[in-house]
Structures are given as structure tokens and as C-alpha cells.
């Protein structure tokens, strides 16, 4: 799942080395927290969050091994 998020985001940003994805497991869901370079924030959120929404749609569609809900937190 982490690999998927990184694959999606890497070509979108100017500073791929600053991409960080952390995973926190909670009771009912797994939260993935995505951070990018300050200058790239707009590139992963987009106008009206359009890019963020597309990223989430793809991530949520991917099947995961765990049976928990997945939540993607951006910045």
C-alpha cells in the first residue's frame, strides 16, 4: 500500500526525495500519512483538491491485505 502511494505521487512532484509515507494502525482503520516538500503541496492537492481526490480514489480501490478501512491523510 505504501508502495502504491509512492508510485502515484513520485512523478507528480518536483522533489521526489522529500516524499514520506507513514503508516499508523488504529482500531478500525489504517491511516497513511503522506507528506511532500513544501513547494509540492499544491501538486498533490490540486485545484479544489482534485488531485488529492483522484489519489484517494485509486488508493481506496486497491485491495489491501488487512481487513481494516484505509484512510489517506495528505500533509
Amino acid at each position: 500500500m505504501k508502495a502504491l502511494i509512492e508510485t502515484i505521487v513520485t512523478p507528480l512532484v518536483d522533489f521526489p526525495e522529500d516524499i514520506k509515507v507513514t503508516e499508523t494502525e488504529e482500531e478500525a482503520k489504517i491511516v497513511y500519512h503522506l507528506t511532500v516538500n513544501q513547494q509540492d503541496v499544491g501538486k498533490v492537492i490540486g485545484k479544489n483538491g482534485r488531485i488529492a481526490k483522484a489519489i484517494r480514489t485509486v488508493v481506496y480501490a486497491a485491495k489491501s491485505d488487512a481487513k481494516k478501512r484505509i484512510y489517506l491523510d495528505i500533509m
Partner: protein
Amino acid sequence: MRQITASGQTVDEAVQSALEQLNTTRDQVEVEVIDEGKKGLLGVFGSKRAIVKVTILKNPIEEAEKYLKEVIRNMGVEAEITGSIEGNHITFDVTGEKIALLIGKRGQTLNALQYLTHLVINKDKKQYYTVTVDAEGYRARRKETLETLAIRMAEKALHLQKVVELEPMPAYERKIIHSVLQTRDDVSTYSDGVEPHRHIVIKP
């Protein structure tokens, strides 16, 4: 190596030499002439060699196909992708198992993939491409569904003599409905609302 500076008697020769060193062809590079060079007297005195800077261009289409492939693989789906270009429009056709997962409800996952691929392709902005990502003929099937829906909803509007609002759809899906009902003079269509809630309204 993506970029090289080369010299030669003439600009052409310099470019040729750079292409050989980069092991590529003229149509895959961008050439910047730094010095045009001078012939000089009798080709000996005061002659200056031509200097060019040659950069290999990234092929955005290959990049995009690789991107799409990687993303789909990381989603845990085995699929084949074939890309085709027509002018500045690129179509990627995805085939394989578990394709329903890639399409999603009303094609929302497919649309998200399409949008992300579009972003990757147009990142450098050298040339603008439009992208369609299709899966097992989904777009064609969807078009048919929308055409039937358009006609049915037009009948409903006429029958009730009331405006009928459809659910929000992306621009190219709205376009399909508009064009189906355009030729009819008993109903008119327009779009209302702001993206991403923009939807069609059919008026008798």
C-alpha cells in the same frame, strides 16, 4: 547520459557527433546551438568550430504508460496496457483480470487513473496531450448507457412537463448526453452547478 555538448566543423556535424555519442536519433533530442562556428579564411585561418548542446527528450507517452502500469501493478491487479496515439490524443487500453476493481463505481477509479496519467503526461508542458484510459471497452459501454439514459430522461421531462436533473458527471460524459439531445427540438439541455457537482438539466 541525458545531455551532451559536442563540436564539429559545422552545426550539422556537431549535432551528428552528439547523436552518435548519445546513441539516439534527431527526433528524440532537443538541440541548442551555442556557437554556429566560422569557416575562416581558406578554411584554415580564424575558423571556429560549431558547438551545440543536445538534450535527450523524455518521451512523455512512454513515461505515462510506465506510470499507469506501475500504479495498476501496485494496486494488486494483473493487467496488460496497450497505448495508441492519434494526433495529441492518447488512448490507453487496459485488459486483464479483476478489471472491475480498476473501473470502480460509475468508472470513478478509471477516471481517477485517467486524470493522474493526464497530469504525468502534461507535467513538462512542452506539448499538450489529452488522455483516455479505457478498460475492456468500458467507455464504449458507458456511452451506450448514457445515450439510452438521455433519451429516457428526455421522455420523462416531456411526460411530466418538468425539468429533470441528472446526477453529477464528468465533462465528457455530459457531452455525450448533450450531443444526443442536441438534435431534438422538444427538449433543451444545459449544465448546472460547479465542478465536481456539475450536472445536466433537461428542460422540456
